């Protein structure tokens, strides 16, 4: 059978990829996609622990993560649209009006 470690390491790898994406990409939609990668890495860890401990709570938590991801995507993309309407770009470095 597959040891728990493997799932945890896979989760860590995906999480790091998400973090890297969040810091290196400049397109705001790509940033949101990176956040989704991180959320998924966490979901995998939740499910792996739930399976290993024999408790369902971990899987219930994934449900709540899904809701948060959905809410984040809905509001985040609405902001993206508003930003594109005003600035004609999605590069987060060029949306610097609030910077001093």
């Amino acid at each position, binding site marked *: 059978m597959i040891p728990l470690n493997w799932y945890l390491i896979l989760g860590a790898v995906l999480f790091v990829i998400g973090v890297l994406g969040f810091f290196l990409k400049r397109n705001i939609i790509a940033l949101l996609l990176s956040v989704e990668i991180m959320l998924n890495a966490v979901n995998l860890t939740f499910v792996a622990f739930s399976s290993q401990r024999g408790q369902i709570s971990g899987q219930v938590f994934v449900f709540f993560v899904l809701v948060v991801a*959905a*809410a984040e*995507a*809905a509001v985040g*993309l*609405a902001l993206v*649209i508003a930003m594109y309407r005003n600035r004609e770009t999605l590069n987060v470095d060029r949306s610097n009006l609030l910077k001093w």
Partner: protein
Amino acid sequence: MLQSWAPILAFLILVSGFAVVSVIMSYVLGVKNPNPRKLAPYECGMQPTGTARERFSVKFYLVAMLFLLFDIEAVFLFPWAVVYRDLGLFGFFEMVLFIAAILAGYIYVWKKGALEWER
């Protein structure tokens, strides 16, 4: 439990194989006789004008966003419906509370005019 998913994997391989092979077959067997007119985008025989990459109305975004949020609600309804007999009247009031909140959002969206396509 995993055993019940094994046939799905086999079926997936079969179906994907069929799809990929039929694309390759038509590429191999079909005649190839291209000319610039044939490869131009179809605009009812007129000369193609302008670009196809125009922006769409934000209404499409609103539809997808409403779909996403109501889909989340539907996802909660499935496990609820499956265990409903055990929960009984208690489960009913739980879900009334949940749906009431969603319904408030629905009414808000309706009043805001996000469901109108004419304007």
